[in-house]
């Protein structure tokens, strides 16, 4: 099953960056492009039902419907030290917004290891996978 083309493109780019330091700089540049949801989409305090369980970076995932049946995705990361979560949020927002829902559902949760490498703690892994899981859940159920 295909995954969203923009996500595929990011993964292919990362494959071309075998050096850890270069990969990290690429991910940091993505994190720097992260933006919280605009207040007209969702206001603080964010509803707890959209909090990613187990994510120490305090991530939230929101989505809004588009006319074509796809979704606009928005991510919040409340912990300013949650740089990896911000990088993943930037990737998922760019990749999942406007993407075919079936393609989103085809994304495996462990895609985070393709993004960050396998040198992640269990806790960090679970938090990041939780972000993917929650976005997929919204793609499955419809907009929130």
């Amino acid at each position, binding site marked *: 099953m295909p995954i969203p083309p923009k996500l595929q493109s990011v993964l292919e780019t990362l494959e071309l960056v075998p050096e*850890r*330091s270069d990969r*990290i*700089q690429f*991910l*940091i540049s993505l*994190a720097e492009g992260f933006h919280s949801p605009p207040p007209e989409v969702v206001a603080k305090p964010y509803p707890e039902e959209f909090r990613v*369980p*187990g994510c*120490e970076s305090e991530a939230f995932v929101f989505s809004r419907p588009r006319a074509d049946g796809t979704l606009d995705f928005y991510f919040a990361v409340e912990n300013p*030290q*949650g*740089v*990896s979560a911000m*990088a993943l949020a930037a990737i998922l927002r760019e990749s999942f917004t406007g993407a075919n829902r079936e393609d989103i559902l085809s994304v495996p949760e462990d895609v985070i290891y393709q993004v*960050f*490498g*396998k*040198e*992640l*703690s*269990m*806790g*960090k892994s*679970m938090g990041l*996978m*939780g972000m993917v899981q929650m976005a997929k859940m919204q793609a499955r159920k419809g907009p929130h």
Partner: protein
Amino acid sequence: MAISELQSLEHTTSEALVSTEWLAEHLEDPNVRIVESDEDPLLYFVGHIPGAVEVDWTRDLNDQVRRDYLNRESFEALMRRHGIGNDTCVVFYGDRSNWWAAYALWVFSLFGHANTRILDGGRQKWIAEGRPLTSEEPNYEPTNYTAQPRDDKQDRAFRDEVLAHSDLHNKLIDVRSPQEFTGERLHMPEYPNEGALRGGHIPGALSVPWARAVNLETGEFRPLEELRQIYELEVGLGKGEDVIVYCRIGERSSHTWFVLKHLLGFGSVRNYDGSWTEWGNLVGVPIER
């Protein structure tokens, strides 16, 4: 405090900690090497304390094939690469209330590098005070560091030792969440299952979650008097007792190991790094709920 004074200090009091003020005054001290160890693999590269090197807990401290720590040769290579000499004072800091910093310090101790400190408050306090960060990675002249063979007896415990310790009713401290301790959960609150087949705790273990030792608002360790109140008066640990601490993989418990051994001055504290991911999967070992 002069570095010569620092090197002579015993790690039995809060001298095992340095303050942000002290570290700010020693950023260019050639006898001090600052080491950042984080859970988030990007944090160091976003910005770190000037002059700090990164020690990654998976890549640098763990054997890359079997479940164990690096060997003597790898440790020497790590130290030489970062310009750390045998007498260098290594100051650890990191994210998550110095959780991973304590873990790195514990691994360093297995190789006999005793001149170690933790930056009280870690990354959180340094940033909160508006102190400088840089993304520039330092380059240090390699050293000829020589390590002692890894000593797994003094500060580390293995499953058979833990079983014997439990049978003798010696003190065991479980630093996981209360829900993990009771077996209600097999993993940290709100975290998915992390691989243990059984829940509960090692018989006789006392529940003292690691975060009780920390002021989570500042990231600092609690004052010594409060720590004594928790561990000695409330829990009833004696400084002369043989104590084993454990958690899930030995990372949270290294934080408590540091508190007991280096802040409160307990004489015999070992970290069971096999912890619940080993014990909860072992066939036939006793479990209490």
